[in-house]
């Protein structure tokens, strides 16, 4: 196992950075990442603590395979008490940041207290210090990464930061690393903002950061694992070609694509926002939305979407910063920004997704909340005067406008930033909020896929598709095909998936490996 055996404890109040030994007994029992980070959190905080209190802690934690050649071994998790759910929030991210932390000499960083003024943590090979971030406050994720790299004259620094959504405590603000990879859900970015912590910047070049017990056997095992991923239809073909967006048409056909705040289960615009559509040449400029696929650290699947918008799209006409390529829509984002609101303009979805990455907020919770607001509007419970503009289902302009307003907390964006549970409660219709523990359902309808419904209901971080992916048996037939609408045998299968997911989330690897390496 690739442990540096070092934990960095940062006290934001005192301004200290102290290294302590990793609790190896816990590393053995709870593996790493999700398991280990959660163990540290529950051991150190009062469960009743206010998520925004300085007494809450924020933990960045890697797994035993993070920063190794094991395919997809680049993941890290952020664990804290979350403001959206009031439960333990544990959000997982890829990119290159987690591996860099390992090469710098730490497995984990624990942030305690809150800083009096904005700061960022700078980590370089065995050294860590808090640096004034007054000049970064109010900047986006994209600006912050650029400024930090320039300031330290090192283009190879990896940065994880919050945008204005985290600063303004949008309840589903995330932490974004490497420009478009996010610990996205449950509001971990809002907790970071409450601590006046703008970013964590890391440069790691050590060859002795960790020791592997049997290096030759490890190397041989990684080689074998890569071959299995390449040979599998999902990880070797589907995901590289279409990303998770391979699902849009499939789920829609099944009648399990939640549409217009779950009023319907099929979306007439699904095809236009699908993975296939991202490959098609646009009539406007003759270019496809998708530029290429991209990988996270060590990943031989490479499901990531890199998109470039139509430069003449109404949303970005005079905004050159969005005309280059960047992280495009994945399935969840395409659903939330699109089908959940009845919007079928792929370019508008891409723009809103850019904004989610740029200012650090979760497209799932954001899009689902806009969908709920649209339903309230159609029912006459929300008025044009309150919103500032018309908000019917299917309004591309309204969805885009709200994406622009939410992170900066202006106008009705402030209310959208509370999430759908608080929004619907405010307007007297709590049952219109499609949430569990206050967290929005993702892109599969629990009525069409009964196992996924059970997965949402029993997920320990609120509604989530990543705590037990019943789409595998119910749609893809992995490990066996299960009838989507049946309930028989589902609890036991879900339990197996929840356990499997807990292991993978604790290892440093990506959940997508389970299509090939799983049950």
């Amino acid at each position, binding site marked *: 196992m690739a442990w540096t055996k070092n934990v960095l404890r940062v006290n934001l109040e005192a301004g200290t950075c102290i290294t302590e030994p990793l609790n190896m007994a816990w590393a053995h029992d709870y593996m790493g990442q999700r398991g280990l980070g959660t163990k540290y959190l529950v051991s150190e905080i009062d469960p009743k603590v206010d998520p925004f209190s300085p007494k809450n802690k924020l933990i960045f934690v890697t797994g035993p395979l993070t*920063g*190794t050649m094991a*395919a997809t071994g680049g993941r890290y998790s952020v664990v804290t008490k979350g403001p959206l759910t009031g439960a333990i929030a544990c959000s997982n991210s890829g990119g290159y940041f987690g591996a860099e932390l390992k*090469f710098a000499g730490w497995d984990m960083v624990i942030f305690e207290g809150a800083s009096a003024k904005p700061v960022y943590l700078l980590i370089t090979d065995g050294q860590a210090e808090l640096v004034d971030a007054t000049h970064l406050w109010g900047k986006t994720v994209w600006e912050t990464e650029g400024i930090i790299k320039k300031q330290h004259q090192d283009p190879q620094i990896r940065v994880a930061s919050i945008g204005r959504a985290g600063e303004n405590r949008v309840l589903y603000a995330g932490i974004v690393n490497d420009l478009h990879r996010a610990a996205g859900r449950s509001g971990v970015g809002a907790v970071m903002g409450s601590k006046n912590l703008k970013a964590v910047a890391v440069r790691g070049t050590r060859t002795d950061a960790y020791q592997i017990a049997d*290096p030759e056997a490890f190397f041989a095992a990684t080689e074998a694992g890569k071959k299995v991923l390449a040979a599998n239809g999902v990880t070797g073909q589907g995901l590289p070609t279409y990303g998770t967006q391979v699902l849009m048409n499939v789920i829609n056909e099944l009648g399990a694509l939640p549409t217009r705040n779950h009023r319907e289960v099929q979306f007439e615009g699904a095809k236009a926002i699908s993975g296939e559509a991202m490959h098609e040449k646009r009539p406007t400029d003759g270019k496809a939305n998708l530029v*290429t696929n991209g990988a996270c650290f060590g*990943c*031989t699947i490479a499901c990531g979407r*890199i998109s470039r918008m139509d430069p003449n799209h109404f949303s970005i006409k005079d905004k050159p910063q969005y005309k280059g*390529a960047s992280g495009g829509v994945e399935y969840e984002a395409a659903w939330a920004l699109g089908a959940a609101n009845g919007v079928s303009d792929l370019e508008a979805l891409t723009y809103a997704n850019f904004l989610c990455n740029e200012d650090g907020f979760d497209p799932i919770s954001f899009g689902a909340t806009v969908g709920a607001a649209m339903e309230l509007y159609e029912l006459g419970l929300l008025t044009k005067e309150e919103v500032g503009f018309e908000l019917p289902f299917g309004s591309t302009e309204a969805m885009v406008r709200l994406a622009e307003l939410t992170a900066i907390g202006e106008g009705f964006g402030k209310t959208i930033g509370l999430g759908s549970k608080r929004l619907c409660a405010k307007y007297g219709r709590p049952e219109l909020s499609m949430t569990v523990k206050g967290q929005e359902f993702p892109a599969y309808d629990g009525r069409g896929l009964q196992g996924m419904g059970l997965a949402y209901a029993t997920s320990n971080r609120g509604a989530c598709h990543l705590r037990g992916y019943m789409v595998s048996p119910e749609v893809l037939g992995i490990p066996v095909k299960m009838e989507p609408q049946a309930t028989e045998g589902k609890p036991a299968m879900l339990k197996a998936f929840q356990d499997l997911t807990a292991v993978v989330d604790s290892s440093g690897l990506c959940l997508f490996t389970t299509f090939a390496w799983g049950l």
Partner: protein
Amino acid sequence: MQKSLQIDPNKCTGCLQCEMACSWENYRSFTIAKSRIKVFSFHHEGRFVPYTCTQCDEAWCMTACPVDAIQLDPVTGAKIVLDPTCVGCKVCTIACPFGTINYVAQTGKVQKCDLCDGAPACAKACPTAAITYVDSDWTGFEKMRQWAGKTDTNPATV
């Protein structure tokens, strides 16, 4: 037959398996910072480009070295840094037009791609064949074949 690394940026996904393989080969560590091949991300163009030494026939680094620490491997054609001889003067890093020979503070020597004695670890590790090791005389062969396929000189088949 002499062979060369052939790089096809269109196939690269930025996974850095090549960088880890290189570091593994030379340091028995996955530290990408020590890799002799680097993948550059041109984020706003959506391009990833692996880049390393192309083993110039008349190698500027070798010519510039004042202590003859860079030698030709007659079998692979690689220009190899002899660590015991290298004094870390870095003149070669100035002479190289491409920036593909670099100083390593940890060892006090320079390092560059040595083609792993004829079995480059980066090419072996690459999952998409963005890096391959092919006949030096025919690095353009695949590209030629693709373009050849686009020609159609027989109207009868149209």
